[in-house]
C-alpha cells in the first residue's frame, strides 16, 4: 500500500539521493547522488533494500516528518539525535514506525549528513535513470514544508529485530583523506607538494553538494589548463591559491589545475565534515601492477 511521509518542518537541507546518474556526463549532466554513499548504502542494506535505493540525505539540522502508515526505517551516517515521537532512536538499527508517528532530529552530535532509508525505498520518479534531486533535472531540489514523499507501507511484513550489516563509523570523525595525484600534480613545485602532504586544511563556509572550499591560501604559480574533465573528488587549485574539493553535484568539466583526486572513501569522509573541521591528505596506496 502506498503511503505518504509528510514534511512538517523541512530542516536545513534535505534531498532525495541514490547513487546518482551515469551515462549523461557527455551532455554536461552532473552525476549527483549521496554525498556519503557508504552511509546511504548502509541504511539501505540494514532494511535489505537495493544498495542504490533512494534515501533522504539530511544535512546537519534534520526535518520533522510524519508517517501516514506503518513503515520500517533505518538511519545511517551522521548522528543528528533522531527521535521517534518523544523517544530517542539509534542509528543503524531497524526502526518500526506506526501511522501518525513523528520522526524528528535534534542537535548534531557526530558528522554532517545522515541518511534515512525506508523499506523498499522512496517511490519517486526516476529522471535520467536516477531519483537524485538536482536543480536542472528534477522538479524538487530540497525538502519543503508540506511536501510528501511516497513509500510502500510495510505493515504486513514480519519485523526483523536485528541486522547483520556492519557499519564502521570511524570515518565520520577521521581527519584523514586518502588521495591520488591529480593530472596536474606533477606540475606543482616540491614545496607545494610537501605542503599538501603535511599540513592540515580546514573547511571554508563555502561548502555544499557541488564543492567544498578549503580556507587556507597556497602560493599558486600554475597556469589554468585547457578546460578538461573533472570528477567528484577532484581537488582543484584556483588562481587565488584556494583548494576546491569537487563533490557529487559538480560540473563535468573545469579549467583549474587538478592537483589531487580523492579516493571513494575519502569523498564519503569529507562529506561528513562541517565548516571549520580539519582534514589531511594522505597518499593512497598505489595498486600493484
Amino acid at each position, binding site marked *: 500500500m502506498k503511503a505518504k511521509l509528510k514534511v512538517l518542518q523541512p530542516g536545513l537541507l534535505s534531498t532525495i539521493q541514490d547513487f546518482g546518474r551515469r551515462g549523461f556526463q*557527455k551532455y554536461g549532466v552532473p552525476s549527483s547522488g549521496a554525498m556519503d554513499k557508504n552511509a546511504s548504502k548502509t541504511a539501505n542494506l540494514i532494511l535489505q533494500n537495493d544498495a542504490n535505493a533512494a534515501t533522504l540525505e539530511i544535512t546537519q539540522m534534520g526535518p520533522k516528518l510524519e508517517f501516514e502508515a506503518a513503515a520500517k526505517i533505518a538511519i545511517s551516517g551522521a548522528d543528528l539525535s533522531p527521535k521517534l515521537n518523544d523517544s530517542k532512536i539509534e542509528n543503524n538499527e531497524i526502526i518500526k514506525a506506526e501511522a501518525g508517528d513523528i520522526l524528528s532530529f535534534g542537535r548534531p552530535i557526530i558528522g554532517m549528513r545522515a541518511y534515512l532509508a525506508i523499506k523498499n525505498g522512496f517511490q519517486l520518479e526516476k529522471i535520467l535513470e536516477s531519483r537524485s534531486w538536482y536543480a536542472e533535472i528534477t522538479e524538487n531540489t530540497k525538502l519543503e514544508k508540506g511536501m510528501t514523499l511516497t513509500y510502500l507501507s510495510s505493515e504486513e511484513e514480519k519485523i526483523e529485530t536485528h541486522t547483520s550489516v556492519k557499519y564502521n563509523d570511524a570515518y565520520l570523525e577521521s581527519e584523514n583523506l586518502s588521495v591520488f595525484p591529480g593530472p596536474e600534480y606533477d606540475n606543482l613545485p616540491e614545496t607545494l607538494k610537501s605542503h599538501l602532504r603535511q599540513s592540515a586544511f580546514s573547511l571554508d563556509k563555502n561548502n555544499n553538494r557541488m564543492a567544498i572550499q578549503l580556507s587556507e591560501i597556497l602560493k599558486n604559480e600554475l597556469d589554468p589548463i585547457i578546460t578538461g574533465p573533472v570528477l567528484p573528488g577532484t581537488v582543484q587549485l584556483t588562481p587565488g591559491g584556494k583548494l576546491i574539493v569537487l563533490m557529487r553535484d559538480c560540473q563535468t568539466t573545469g579549467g583549474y589545475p587538478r592537483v589531487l583526486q580523492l579516493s571513494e572513501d575519502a569523498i564519503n569522509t569529507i562529506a561528513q565534515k562541517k565548516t571549520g573541521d580539519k582534514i589531511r591528505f594522505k597518499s593512497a596506496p598505489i595498486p600493484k601492477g
Partner: protein
Amino acid sequence: MKGFPKISPMGERGVLIEFAPIIDEILLQEILFFKNKLENLYIKANVEVINTYNSLLINYLFSIEDVYGEISKLKKLFENAKIEKISDQKIVYLPVCYDEDFGWDLEFISKEKDLTKEEVISLHTAPLYTVYFIGFLPGFLYLGGLDEKLQISRKKQPRLKIEKGAVGIGENQTGIYPKSSPGGWQILGNCPVNLFDKNANPPFEISSGDKVKFERVSKAEFQEIREQILEGKFQLKKEKYEG
C-alpha cells in the same frame, strides 16, 4: 606530438587520456575516433567515456582492480590504431533571433569592433561551428570557429540574469545559455529551441563532433517557433555532415 597521448589513472575509477594541449579540429577528430573505439571495446562493461578539447576520460562503475594492466592494454590500443574518418556527424541548424529585444550587446559589439550590426550578425551566422564537447551545465555547447573579428572580452560586471537561450560571445567562444543564469558574455540574440530535454532519451540531440549553424530568424518567426515547441510540433533541422 611526442609523449602523447599520456595515459594515467584519475582516482580509483577513472583513466585520463591526455592529448597535446591544443584546441584543434583535427585533434578532435582523432579523439572522437578513439572515443568510439573505447565505447566499442567496453560495450558490455559499465564505463562512460567523455571527451573535452584534448582529453578522454574513461569513468568506470567500480574501482579498477589492476590499473597498470588496464593502462598497458589502452596503450596498445592507441599505438596500433589506424585513425579513420568518423562517419556519423551531423549539422544542426539552430534558429537565432538577433532582434534588439534579445541582442542586448549588439550595439556595444558593433561600436567596439567598428562593424555595422548587420555585419556582426552575418559574421556570426556565417561559420559552421564545431561542437568540441558539452560540459559546464547540462546542454552547454563548447563551440569552435568564431570569426576573429567578433572576439570580444566578457563584460567587466557580469549580469545577474541572462535569459535562457541567450546567444553570446566571451573572448574566442560563442555559445548558448542553456538556462537563465548570471553571466558575463556579450549577448547578441536568443535561440528559442529547448536543446536539453530531461524527459527525452537521449536528453540532448547534439554530440561532440557535430556542426552547428546559426540561422537568423525574425521576431515573428521566433514567436512561431516558440508556439510550435509548446504544441510539440517543432522539428530541429538536421542533416548529415559530409566533411
